[in-house]
């Protein structure tokens, strides 16, 4: 029962995150959408590991990997935002019709 609710919550977080990632014009808000989707993934992993895997340590490892992915996504994302802003003074997705220099 708890597991179902946790997984439904994870589904909701992924759905909200997808909405944000698709709809937001601002790069930073877009990244928040991506983070929210990863948050949903993290919740699902924690729930499944805790309630359905009998304490298999690899489950925790997967959660650590998701956290590392979040860190990578954040830092590369922000670095790209800075690079694009420096070049184009653009902070919205529409401003990037082209990725050329």
């Amino acid at each position: 029962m708890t597991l179902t609710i946790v997984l439904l919550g994870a589904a909701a977080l992924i759905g909200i995150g997808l909405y944000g990632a698709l709809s937001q014009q601002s790069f930073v808000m877009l990244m928040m959408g991506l983070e929210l989707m990863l948050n949903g993934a993290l919740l699902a992993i924690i729930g499944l590991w805790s309630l359905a895997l009998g304490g298999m340590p690899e489950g925790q490892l997967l959660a650590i990997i998701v956290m590392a992915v979040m860190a990578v996504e954040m830092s590369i994302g922000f670095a790209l935002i800075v690079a694009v802003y420096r070049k184009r003074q653009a902070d919205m997705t529409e401003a990037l019709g082209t990725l050329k220099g």
Partner: protein
Amino acid sequence: MIDALVILLVLFAAWTGWRVFRVDSMIRATFSLMLSFISVGAIGVLLSAPYIGVATVFMMAVEMMVMGIFMVMFMMNPAGLNPMMMVHQHKLSIVAGVLAALGLGAAVLTTTLPTDPVPGETDVVSDLGHELLGPSMLIFETAGVTLLATMIGAVVLSSRRGRYGQADEGSRPPGLDPGGPPAGRQPEGEGGHHHHHHHHGGH
């Protein structure tokens, strides 16, 4: 008791996640996302994953502080005087979001989920440590190297100084032969549309 708390925290995580895209303040949006992460971390603590849960809180507090500063740096919303709703393909996004949530939810509800909780006496933290530095050492090390590459990549991308001159000037790769025209092509005109007008108000 724990179940009730978990349910409350799941609801709180979803609600704060939703608030991220509904508030008119950059900082509230950021820290709303942080609250969503903290509730997931708290669920981890309740569901016998103390290290993962607390580490999530630690990491997200730092990350969201950085995120908040980037929000203020790059969002165009002076003083929260105007609504922050800046969206495109809104209907499509709503449909995609709802479909994703419903699809995943349906998958959850139609699957028979196994029940095999963590045995009470497991020392999960030391299990995790032995796993990280034992059988899964290669994976762990790969993550470490990836993070190192990320650090270098982030510094290179965001730095102003570049191999071919300042990053904000038109960068020109070197020629294929000495003194020749630059390799590759320069984009015509300026990319991007300028929505920042230089406006000097009187006062």
